[in-house]
């Protein structure tokens, strides 16, 4: 593959004909080389789905690169910018497949807000600590009910507690990842300000749970 600087990449890709074809072919080869190992955290090298995902991702990446070419600002190497696009495409697809059977109902908090929590695993805890922990949790839940909307609590439960990707929670909620991050940020800020207003230290609350 020929070495190109950023300017040459842009020029070649902007020149329909052999130059553009050669540049696209070189990018395609590079993506097929570097994508598999980057995705082994999600798919085994022996998994036939990996080869298909890599090829599909490479094709979609080339289309997006051509489409977004005028937004490239040369703040990084051109290939790094291309990899960034490829990673977003591949991981979006992987997340969608992994979470496709989960519905909005399943990410809705189901535990009762007024039910006292039970610590079955902490039998060695003295009753006083347990009571303090239960009361703390009930108070925190009350704060969440007062400070957060249903949507904010739903998102927080899905992302923080159930470990769902923002991308997928956003899709289920009919939103997008950027807006969902802002929603989460607003939720965290509200809770932080409320705890500060009540003069409650997060470190001290965590300490209560560790007793």
């Amino acid at each position, binding site marked *: 593959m020929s070495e190109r600087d950023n300017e040459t990449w842009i020029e070649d890709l902007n020149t329909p004909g052999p130059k553009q074809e050669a540049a696209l072919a070189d990018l395609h080869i590079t993506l097929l080389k570097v994508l598999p190992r980057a995705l082994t955290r999600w798919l085994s090298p022996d998994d036939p789905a990996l080869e298909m995902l890599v090829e599909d991702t490479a094709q979609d990446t080339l289309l997006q690169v051509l489409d977004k070419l005028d937004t490239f600002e040369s703040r990084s190497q051109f290939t790094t910018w291309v990899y960034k696009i490829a990673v977003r495409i591949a*991981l979006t697809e992987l997340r969608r497949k992994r979470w496709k059977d989960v519905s909005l109902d399943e990410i809705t908090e189901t535990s009762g807000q007024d039910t006292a929590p039970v610590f079955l695993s902490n039998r060695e805890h003295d009753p006083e600590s347990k009571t303090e922990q239960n009361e703390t949790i009930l108070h925190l839940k009350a704060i969440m009910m007062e400070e957060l909307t249903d949507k904010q609590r739903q998102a927080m439960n899905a992302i923080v507690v159930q470990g769902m990707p923002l991308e997928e929670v956003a899709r289920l909620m009919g939103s997008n990842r950027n807006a969902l991050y802002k929603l989460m940020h607003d939720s965290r800020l509200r809770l932080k300000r409320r705890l500060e207003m009540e003069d409650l230290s997060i470190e001290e609350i965590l300490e209560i749970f560790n007793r």
Partner: protein
Amino acid sequence: MKNFFKLFKHRKQTVQGPEQASMQMLLRSVAMTDEQELSCDEVYALVDQFAEMVKRGEDGSGLMPMVQKHLNMCPDCREEYEALLKMMEDSTE
């Protein structure tokens, strides 16, 4: 997937105490919250530049602290950043 969730919930219910574990996770994320944070789109625009700085051995978190902060807070962006680093490593081999 539905069965997986039931198993997961059951395991947490009987072994870890779900309320406590959930609240701890939530509180840690609240503790790390700043008034101003970059959004996913803002980080996406900068992450290739950030990754190259880190790859060159520069102090990414010192030079672009808000990008680092977002990567610490956002699991989706962090996953993508880590995969990007991996691709950059492989492309230089």
